[in-house]
């Protein structure tokens, strides 16, 4: 088990990062909170060793994203707190973009978030999400194309 002090440090360092990723994939505040809690509890149980903070962060994000995917497979998932209704006010253009992103399949949303927001390379995303790198590249291309069509232009 992880030392409780260490666990608190990890939570403080990464809770917002994981929460943003979970929100991007699930689009639901309550579900995202559950997914993040599960990820931290998994960290607490496994007490993994990492050579540096970058690997620790990547591991936690991977656990969170994969946990989100498993939640999406549950037949009992209900959208109880739509992201856009409960979160910081978005201006018109932000809202359009967020709605377009939320219209993407969950796996595409995960790749978009990890690539554009977290800055991971396709090979890293592939390792984190258990996909082939070619698949990740395809998802990115497809997602960009869909966003382009939905937004009638390049997303800013």
């Amino acid at each position, binding site marked *: 088990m992880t030392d409780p002090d260490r666990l608190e440090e990890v*939570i403080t360092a990464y809770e917002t990062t994981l929460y943003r990723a979970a929100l991007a994939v699930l689009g639901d505040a309550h579900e995202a909170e559950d997914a993040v809690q599960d990820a931290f509890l998994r960290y607490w149980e*496994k007490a993994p060793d990492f050579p540096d903070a970058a690997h620790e962060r990547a*591991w936690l994000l991977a656990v969170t994203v994969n946990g989100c995917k498993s939640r999406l497979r549950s037949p009992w998932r209900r959208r109880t707190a739509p992201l856009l209704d409960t979160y910081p006010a978005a201006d018109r253009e932000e809202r359009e973009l967020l709605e377009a992103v939320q219209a993407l399949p969950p796996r595409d949303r995960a790749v978009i978030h990890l690539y554009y927001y977290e800055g991971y390379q396709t090979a890293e995303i592939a390792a984190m999400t258990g996909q082939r790198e*070619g698949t990740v590249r395809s998802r990115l291309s*497809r997602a960009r*194309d869909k966003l382009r069509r939905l937004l009638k232009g390049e997303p800013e």
Partner: protein
Amino acid sequence: MNRYRSYMNRIHAPSGLRYRVLEAAERGQRPRRPARRWIGAGALAACFALAFFGGWQAWRYAAHYQPDPTAGVADPPAVITPAPAETEHTLVVEDPFDGQPHGFFDVPALEFADVTDCSPYLIDWDWKGDASVLPLTPQEIITVLGGTDEVPWSLLWSGFGLDGTAWYSGESLDGGQSLMVSITGENGDTSFTLELSPGQLPPGGESYPDAAVQDYDGVAVTAWYTRPDGDGGPNYTYCVELLSGDMGVRFTCDSPDQETVSWLSCVLVRYAAQADGGFTTEHLTPGEIPAAGEELTLADVRDNDLNSWLPPADALPAGFTFEGGRAEQNWGEQSLLSAIWNRGEDSIAVTVCRSAGDGDYPEADLALEDVTASALQGLGRQYAGDDALWQWSSLAVDWGDGVLVEYSLRGLTLEEALGLILGTPGRASTSVVEFPATEKDPWTVPNPMPDPSPWQVLPLQ
């Protein structure tokens, strides 16, 4: 994506999240063990396919991806459906020569275009009409590959563990035809996917305009490969596509050993292009295609054989109303009955699974005789900051005799949850009324995994 970033930058984790995690850790709760989910055929057939192949892919790449020898990254994140590389395959190809050297000399020397730095055309596709998916038996795999009692040795697949899946048109027993077959193979660091479609190339997600097209024995063969691109992926990926007679073939092979993957691809082309046999799907018939899940009313739920394991009406806490139910049959081996009740934001979702054999079966969190208030407390989390209310995202209870019941509960007290599971009327409120679903639509799977987009070719620049 600047606006996406600027919006996300304004989002922060909810206050209290860290305290709830620390509190759970302090109470000695173990993390929720994710239960493998049962996925029925029919409407969720594509999801099964995605999970099946995504699962094999996930473990194959998770086990082999080594970005840095000194990384020391901990165990790969848990993924729900995949199996590790050492999981038993449907069929393992034996070496008919018992290790004796053997080979042949007319393997084509194909030209493979290096498309590592090229952009593919992305092709969105879906089956026209309904489609069902079923796993292949060992004999079906052998027959698809053109063998009788064993996998043809001339494929040089000795040592590979094989699994196969077939897609059939329709959801009924009548007229179902084979649409596509996919056979995956794994042997150490090397893996492949062989896709076969009668009458056309197998539908695919990407196509490279720069791929090399050449003639082999009168058959046009498209061939491309990608290199490990320096970002950490160790594998070469080789792909060949051809239409040989009435059979469309795509073979994609991955390995850190370029010579191996190139050789297997060339051998495959030699085999597929032969005029007197090769691959066939003619023998495949869907047989018993499991019916798609059936949506149920409350009366239907209570009439179902598996209702005995659902909470009785008087075990439900006050205020919960029935939202919907569903019955499914998975591959003939598992019977599922699911029902959900809601009370505002609170919910009770119960899935009963009865397995006829050694079906895909999540591990139980508790045996029925071990269900106690303290056991539930150890597996749950407090809900919405209220000390009295709890939630369990996934709690699997083994009821014995092949029955496992999974509970997803939110907004119940410990006593209510205990009473619900054990079905003890005295522990629950007596003012319970089961209301059938009202003007709401019957329960459907919310936010399911997306099916592939409708078939259309979308060439992208």
